[in-house]
């Protein structure tokens, strides 16, 4: 379970710049192995364990919303990206309906327009259709 630690990222660079990362990589491998060995005799945690529930809907929506921000920000401009990230992530919460997510997204677009476009002048056009 704890073996996620033993990343093997090769240090391909020559001895100069690769020296330090290599040393760290080696240390990480050692701690990783120790943790993995320790996991064979699981020690009781003092802190009460929180049951780990899978929350696929929330997770997928949040990840998708960030991806949508990047993609739409690239091809569509700031406002569509804003709408997408707020709307999608709002849908991730089970208590939100389509309607409330829509209203929230629209509201955030207004906020975005006033704060980031007028006041702070973020370097991303509000709308654009070009494919760069």
């Amino acid at each position, binding site marked *: 379970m704890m073996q996620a630690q033993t990343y093997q990222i090769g240090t391909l660079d020559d001895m100069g710049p690769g020296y330090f990362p290599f040393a760290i990589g080696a240390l*990480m491998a050692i701690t990783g192995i120790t943790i993995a060995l320790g996991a064979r005799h699981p020690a009781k945690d003092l802190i009460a364990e929180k049951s*780990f529930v899978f929350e696929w809907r929330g997770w997928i929506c949040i990840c998708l919303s960030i991806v949508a921000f990047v993609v739409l920000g690239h091809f569509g401009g700031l406002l569509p990206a804003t709408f997408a990230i707020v709307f999608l992530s709002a849908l991730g919460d089970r208590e939100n309906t389509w309607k409330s997510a829509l209203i929230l997204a629209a509201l955030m677009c207004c906020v975005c327009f006033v704060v980031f476009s007028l006041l702070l002048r*973020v370097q991303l056009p509000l709308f654009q259709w070009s494919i760069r």
Partner: protein
Amino acid sequence: MIEQALVDLWHGFAVAGEPHNLMWSFIGVLIGNLIGVLPGMGALSAISMLLPLTYGLHVVPAVLMLAGIFYGSQYGGAIGAILLNLPCHPPHAVTCLDGYPLTKQGRGGTALGITMISSFFAASFGILVMVFASPLLLKVAFKFGPTEIFSIMLLGLVCGGTLSRGSALKGVSMTLFGLLAGAVGTDVNSGVARFTFGFPELTDKLELVALALGLFGVTEFLININRMDAVIAGPTLKWRDMRPSRGEMKEAFWPMVRGTLVGTLFGAMPGTGPTITTFLAYALERKISKNPESFGKGAIAGVASPEAASHSKTQVDFIPTMSLGIPGDAVMALILGALLIHGITPGPELVTQHADLFWGLIASFWIGNILLVILNVPLIGLWVKLLRVPYRFLLPSALFFIAVGVYSTNNSLFEVGEVLFFGLIGVVFVSLKFPVSPILLGYVLGPMVEENFRRAVLLSNGEISVFVEKPISAVFMGITATVLLLQIYFAIQRGRSIRLCRRKANKEHLPG
């Protein structure tokens, strides 16, 4: 020398008192307080979210604002902990233990008042320590070369990794992961690109803001979504309720002083996180209390002491960060990173070359703490209302601010992707019970550690033994080794006791 410090401090007050600086300090405290009150947002997410906003500012107001956000959010977190039993920020988990029972008894206002008084007292004490200890430290600091700096940084990293909550080994491995993340980008000495995985964007280092927001913002959201209980009704409060009676003040006074001292001590030690400080202050208070059974049921001492500890630690933490360039914990690492972005390298030179910044910062702490008290007395009703903002509205809006904030750092959408990446990594780590804050510490210190290590070895013609030959460095190396050995010793002890328990359990089962 003390006179010199006082003169400098006076000058600092003049800097902090300039209307322009005062305004940004005020804005920082206000926003920090606001974000701190919101459920699920701590000092780390507050600072990293607002860091991009400070890029347009001059250095002095920017740092004053960031510091304001820091202690403002810390104070705001206490409100949620006491009134709603919501520890927005891990250090406040302890405050919940006694603060919330007090609220249930209808004394929530008193608890808040006590918190405010002890925070103010502790912060003032911390500031005084800072004023008088910094010049002393500076005298020593000028003798430090790369060898000594490397040793201290190593100590900080080891402490940061092992003294956080949970398994020490996991902490160390997270610190190492942070160091590795810090190595991404173009190597300073040779210009070779490392760990870029073919992305040209990565030659320019990983973005600090993206890393911090991914690990502390997105990770939090992914974990908390659909899991935050909706807050239906909170208590209503008027500011008149906040005045504690004389008896309550008496009850709170000594715990407050003790908490302050605990916080000061731990603030001076590198790498000890705020959570462990508040927990220790609470444990100490319960141990020496005449009626320990009252703790957990609304003891005033249980609120005063940890809050005082966390605030005095906050102030004292700035000493090593500013004068040596070695951050004590993740928040300090973030502030250090902010300074670097603004083109200022913290270290002994900072205090002499940017005297206005250093002393202005100290003076602004005091002004900021006064502002905090003034702000919170009339606005407490508003904060309580804010606590009821449903998480389902809060989360999407915050996510949006994160995305735009990261984008505007370098006008790069690639970095928004980095946020998602680190958010996912953070969730994996957190669910496997790896602490994430050492990553940030490692990330910020990584390049500095590497640089100083190389320089030290270069100066000594490749002799690695130079770290134990120089006296100052040897002392720090000794402390580091002691910390490590103690941890190993405790780990073996723990393993033995567990095995003993198991053997006992087995024996009980066998005859039956």
